[in-house]
């Protein structure tokens, strides 16, 4: 069992909700990706690939199903008109921490990193998250750091995202990538 992955996911869900997020699967996956790509956290135990709606990991889908099964997370009430499930910590949300191997300082750093990224992603809609994460993917995987070129490439990959939108998204997160 990947308790470490579960521990991170619970923390992300908690922070996303604190920032008024829907805390659905897309928010969780894109937040995890940004935490990983911005190197804000040492090791995110999920493999990402560029998929239909930007960086994606199939590992998290399965992890969420496992976590639900032992009560680490639960489905929250959904609101008609919003899409997909909304998640909240469950009765066993703290269980993965029993296997934590981080020092207190490392835990503190991790919480700060999650706070920073969730603040950015929490209230974004699915389309905005796709744009933001895809721009970071170009930076991280294609080693491109020129804003115009990143925007052009995002538009090439996702024609429904304009270059202007991609540029704005990248500018929002740029300082995380270069700091």
């Amino acid at each position, binding site marked *: *069992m990947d308790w470490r992955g579960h521990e991170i996911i619970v923390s992300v869900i908690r922070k996303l909700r604190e920032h008024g997020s829907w805390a659905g699967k897309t928010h969780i996956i894109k937040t995890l990706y940004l935490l990983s790509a911005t190197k804000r956290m040492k090791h995110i135990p999920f493999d990402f*690939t560029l*998929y*239909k*709606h930007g960086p994606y990991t*199939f590992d998290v*889908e*399965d992890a*969420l*199903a*496992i976590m*639900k*099964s*032992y*009560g*680490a997370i639960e489905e929250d009430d*959904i609101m*008609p*008109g919003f*899409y*997909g*499930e909304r998640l909240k910590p469950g*009765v*066993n949300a703290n*269980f993965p921490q029993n296997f934590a191997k981080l020092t207190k300082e490392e835990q503190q750093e991790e919480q700060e990193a999650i706070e920073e990224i969730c603040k950015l992603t929490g209230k974004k809609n*699915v389309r905005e998250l796709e744009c933001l994460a895809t721009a970071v993917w170009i930076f991280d995987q294609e080693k491109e750091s020129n804003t115009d070129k990143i925007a052009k490439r995002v538009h090439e990959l996702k024609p*429904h995202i304009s270059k202007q939108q991609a540029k704005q998204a990248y500018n929002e997160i740029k300082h995380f990538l270069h700091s």
Partner: protein
Amino acid sequence: MKKLRHEIRDAIHGFVEFDNLERELIDSQPMQRLKHIHQLAMSYQVYPGATHRRFEHSLGVMELATRIFDSVFSHEEKISETVRERIGEYLQKETITYWRRIVRLAGLLHDVGHLPFSHASEKLLPKGWNHEKLTSEIIKKSAISKILKQEHSRIDINDIVDIATSFRKRKVTLSPWKTLLNEMITGNSFGADRMDYLLRDSLHAGVIYGRFDPFKLIEGLRIVIDSATDEIALGLEYNSIHCAEALLLARYFMYSQVYFHDVRKSYDMHLEEYLKKKLIKGHFPTDWKEIMKITDNEILVEMRVAAFNTKHKLHHYARRLLCRKHFKTVYEINPIHKTKCPTIFDDLLNSLKGEIQSENILTASEGPKFESNDFPVYIDENTIGRAKDLSEVIKKVPTIEFSLIFVEDGVREKAKRLIKDKIKKLFSGEG
């Protein structure tokens, strides 16, 4: 005069019709091989009627995929203006005829890469391989490809592969059009593969859990613009949503009562053990030509020899399978235990391993896996909802999972006692 249409009577769908090209493919060696691959491995040791093969399932998938395709595209009034704007180029007569052909062939060929005993032996492929990948190889390289190329050069074989095998499992991205057609075969909610195996497996196993109304369900399908993704998708008319509820519940019951039946899983584990010992390096080859040579038949013949020859190196393993000497279930995880103690399965297993020799213990686990049962629902031209918003049943269909511990019959009572004591300790906080 050469006959242009042919038919086979199928236990589920009645007459399944096909043309000359399809007949040639049905008669090809890769398709005929499926007559010797049990659909449900050795489930016939639990449900004696479950001896059906992948061959008839493949015909069934072709038939259902065609019905889905026709239901969606043959009725002008079902294709809204907004949908037409997105897929208009595919609706020209010649183009839609081509894609109907591709969907039929994809349905027919979608399982040609199955190993002997279907899913039960799939773990014995090297990392990175699965039956979908073998299916793709066989369609592209075997006699199937020759038939398609020689007779009908207009058919792009890659189109068949893209539609026939799960793009999720292959982790590839398809165009919205191909994604739509792929859903018709492999989709979680309305895929022809799922519809056929539920109906067929329940009939042959002799259980009624897998039944639902495929006619009404297929009639209610239509293409919509999915508001969650803003892309074309296979959706269902609101007045057919109860059929989808029935299908999803049927699937849940079939998994919990047939596919994950504890004795069946015990046979799967023994089969895996047997094959691991039998195969060179403990796994199946990935060369499709080698796979083509093996079916359940060759393996069962050798297994029978081993089961009745005490000197055979596989005797011990073969008799478990053929002389009903399978291990017995001593523990099955349940939601209450799991919530009380998420590590209970490993805790119990470790406790048993301390007292019972490990060769007398087997485990089997699967899931829970992510499975979105959500799909778009057509209410009216301006209102596309989501199944989970509109159906309490679909929202609450339980996730499918199991974790089982089996032991050799001789140590069953001891194992049960150990488990009982361990559970008592764990729940009283001493363990």
